[in-house]
């Protein structure tokens, strides 16, 4: 019997309708620890230093890492997964994107440190004890103003905060069509930043098996192979 033209029931529903799905936060591994991430409250600031002594001494804390630790390590930065070039054909400007910021924070929420502890609560409590010395800078928060001369520079490598100037289609044909048009209307569109937002909150478990020297990442994504490739090739330097 062919399934073509038939209404076919899904095979995976049993676990979802009975509450037995294994979403990332449902998974508990032996000796699992929990992470709390310390994030910048400033939109733009230089980092003058970290003080993690109080956090490291807190109950249940296993380790504290800051952007300074990452900068000294072999851990690579996060690559841009989608490359978009200038209309001229030049490669887009891609500044470094360290896993934790060490010199400068560039948006509210930019991660600067991570606390690993035995419980969620211990990690959250200790994260509040991480001290970061910020030198607050003026921020560029409006795309139209950010590209004007004199705006705060977010990345030194991208003058006027322009990492790429991308176009699609035939510019000459479009210009000719407008020139010959009976009527031209101009509209300005404000498009909000678009980000995929499944209802399951973002979550990840990193599991290292030292018997096999093997890393397993549990996370929700539509692109597990892409994540595996980027993490191993660029971030962790693994074969």
């Amino acid at each position, binding site marked *: 019997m062919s399934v073509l033209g038939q209404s076919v*029931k899904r095979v995976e529903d049993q676990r979802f309708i009975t*509450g*037995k799905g294994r*979403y990332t*936060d449902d998974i508990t591994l032996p000796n699992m620890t929990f992470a709390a991430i310390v994030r910048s409250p400033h939109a733009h600031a230089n980092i003058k230093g970290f003080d993690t002594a109080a956090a490291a001494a807190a109950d249940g804390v296993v380790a504290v890492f800051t952007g300074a630790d990452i900068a000294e390590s072999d851990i690579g930065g996060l690559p841009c997964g989608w490359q978009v070039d200038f209309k001229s054909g030049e490669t887009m400007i891609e500044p470094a994107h360290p896993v934790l910021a060490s010199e400068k924070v560039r948006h509210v929420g930019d991660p600067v440190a991570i606390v690993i502890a035995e419980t969620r609560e211990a990690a959250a409590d200790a994260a509040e004890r991480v001290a970061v010395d910020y030198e607050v800078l003026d921020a560029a928060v409006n795309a139209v103003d950010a590209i004007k001369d004199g705006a705060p520079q977010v990345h030194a490598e991208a003058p006027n905060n322009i990492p790429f100037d991308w176009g699609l289609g035939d510019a000459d044909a479009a210009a000719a069509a407008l020139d010959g048009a009976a009527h031209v209307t101009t509209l300005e569109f404000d498009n909000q930043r678009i980000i995929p937002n499944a*209802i399951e909150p973002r979550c990840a478990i990193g599991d290292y098996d030292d018997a096999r020297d093997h890393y397993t990442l549990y996370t929700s994504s539509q692109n597990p192979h892409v994540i595996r490739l980027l993490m191993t090739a660029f971030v962790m330097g693994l074969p």
Partner: protein
Amino acid sequence: MAVPITVTVNSQTHSGEVEPRTPLVSYLREVLSLTGTHVGCDTSNCGAEITTIEGLAPEGGLHPLQEAFRETHGLQCGFCTPGMILAAWQLLERNENPSDAEIRHSLEGNFCRCTGYDNIVKAVQHAAQNA
């Protein structure tokens, strides 16, 4: 810091000690290992007797609402599904034959990012007709 509590969940009574800041959903998930109830945001709604998705079905079987969600393709990723089913269960307990508008109104507190809600409404109607 911990305070003693007693809760009845899915007809079983549990006693223990929790920190006052512990959300009910954390207690269900982490202490009772009932991970069927999900954390989508940080609001909670407490009751003296709690039924979770794990307590809805008869032993080895499925509740008509669970069957209905499968039948009408009322789920995709499944994350909102336990909440939808329990909210619908409460509705059908007090209203055996809800209208489309009544169903949508009673599910207002539950979000779904996948389905666009129509098949969820169909699932509730299907369960109401096949209870």
